[in-house]
């Protein structure tokens, strides 16, 4: 089932890609291949592979995680996306401590260990990056001080 679904997704993504490639504007220089051919070729081959995967799926089925693990994975995703947004405006220390702590908790659900991991990684990596490797990281935003 997974492979059939995945193959179909790949097939349609490939077709959409080919369609998007037909809309590419060409340049002014003479060029027998042009800007469209190669992307269309790639999309076409990709779509074909998708179709073949859907027609002949692999056995056995991959084992998908249960609801609780899926929730953990979703939480991890949200944390990482949040971290990407927070790293610049909020400085290094706070977002890193939170993100590392939450990730650690998702891998091993032990609150105390996760808290320590978050604090330790945040502080340790800051010292490493800032003072040993000399990266221009900001510890906390200036107006907090």
């Amino acid at each position, binding site marked *: 089932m*997974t*492979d059939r679904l*995945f193959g179909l997704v*790949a097939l349609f993504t*490939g077709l959409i*890609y080919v369609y*998007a*490639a037909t809309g*590419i504007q*060409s*340049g*002014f*220089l003479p*060029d*027998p*291949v042009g*800007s469209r051919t*190669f*992307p269309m070729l*790639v999309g076409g081959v*990709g779509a074909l*592979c*998708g179709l073949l*995967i859907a027609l*002949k799926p*692999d056995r056995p089925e*991959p084992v998908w*995680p249960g609801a609780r*693990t899926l929730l953990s*994975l979703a939480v*991890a*995703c949200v944390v*990482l*996306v949040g*971290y*990407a*947004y927070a*790293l*610049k405006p909020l400085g*290094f220390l706070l977002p*890193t401590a939170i*993100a*590392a702590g939450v*990730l*650690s908790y*998702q*891998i*091993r*659900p032990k609150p105390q*260990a996760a808290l320590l*991991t*978050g604090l*330790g*990684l945040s502080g340790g*990596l800051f010292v490493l*990056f800032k003072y040993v*490797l*000399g*990266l*221009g990281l900001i510890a906390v935003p200036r107006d907090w001080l």
Partner: protein
Amino acid sequence: METLSLLASGFEVALTPTTLMLAVAGCIIGTMVGALPGLGPSNGVAILVPLAFSFDLDATEALILMTSVYYGAMYGGRISSILLNIPGDEPALMTTLDGYPMAKAGRGGEALVLSGVASFVGALLATIGLMLLAPVLSRVAYLFGPAEYFALYLLAFSTLGGIASDNQRKAALAACIGLGIAMIGVDNSSGMPRLTGGHLHLMDGVDFLVAIVGLFAVSEVFVFIESHGKNTAIGVKLEKIVIPFKVIGRCTGTMLRSTGIGFVAGILPGAGASLGSFLAYTGEKAMVKDSSMFGKGDPRGVAAPEAGNNAAAGGALVPMLTLGVPGSGTTAVLLALLLTLNITPGPQLFAERPEVVWGLIAALLIANFVLLVLNVPMVRLFVKVLSVPPGVLLPGVCMVSFVGIYSLSSSHVDMLLMVAFGVLGYLLRKINVPTVPIILGILLGNAMEDNLRQAMTLSGGEWQFLFSTKIAIGLWIAAVTGFIAPVFLRRFIKQPKPHVDEQMDVDRLTD
């Protein structure tokens, strides 16, 4: 003679205090990264490449640092394979087959020393092979025109898809995903944006480092969340380390044969270290008279794959430096490093910037001796690295990845893209779609298209031009064979199953 004088000039570069220090530091970091359970050469090197740019290193120095890390990780990978039964990456899988049973039988120290020596033999001879072969191949590369390069890239994808994956459809799809991503951004020839969806940030295209770090490192975090890090912590205690001269002596033949096999496998574009260690192990098993102990702790089963995969690591540098075609996931990461440093691999590199090539080769020769010292007498230090719990290691890897990408572009869009690639990498791994062809596609996509367009411009749009020279035809035949032949060969050669520990399963259930 010419080689020797070039090598001497290389040593002049490599023996400066800074370079020497970088090589030693790279070896130490690499061995640690390799030993960390769940990290191997490709994801280890991937997270460190962005950081390497934030120092003020020149091209040669950065290259020497990262290649030392690469060699170090190839050495270090055996430590977690042997003591924990956890391969850091695919090539290290073969080492678990006999290494772990040896460790369980109380011969862990012996296995570590033997595999360290085997790694040394493989890597040293392969570096010498690289030294002799690369200049020759770089002259052959002058015969390559756009049609040949196009066929060569195709060959890399097809051997990678044919050999490294067990499903051609999925490997080909992965290559298409990579090539498709490479197309995003401004078209070099026409100056028009392509497939950016109107996003300004995508005009420059998707940075391959973002994709590499996402697919190789961030996806690892999701994999560990799913497994809850459970299949990591159980290992074998290491007793006294003695140097088993007798065993090493008996394995000399094994090491030399495996080095040869591994080196050749490494040179094949797209094949790389996994094939090297696999062929070395199966070849050795078929060749020795009494193979009944293979899989149960035969020292030769440890020496063969280690010599093989380290030789392949050296061999993989040959096509990477001379033709710009990486032979494995890690060399793809190194190619990304080269491209970001504005070094274009190929024959010009050997002609115009010999100090880069020969400095690198000399540094690798030095690195091998440093690694031998680190990995035989000092191996105990690195064994300690094994006890880092995944609950600390993976968040750490993730944070390092973020800081690396952030220090490259200071843009949150790149970090978001990296997370997206992490999720994609996790999903694809579940569906058993290989990720290395994606990286290769992103790296080579534009060059592949440019060569196709040049070929067509030269020929005035005649498609037959792609098959017009002997070299091109040879490459096309090799590409088709490399893609299709493994389907038939797979029926005869079975991948050995990794050792499953009953005790470990019990622990997993009770944990």
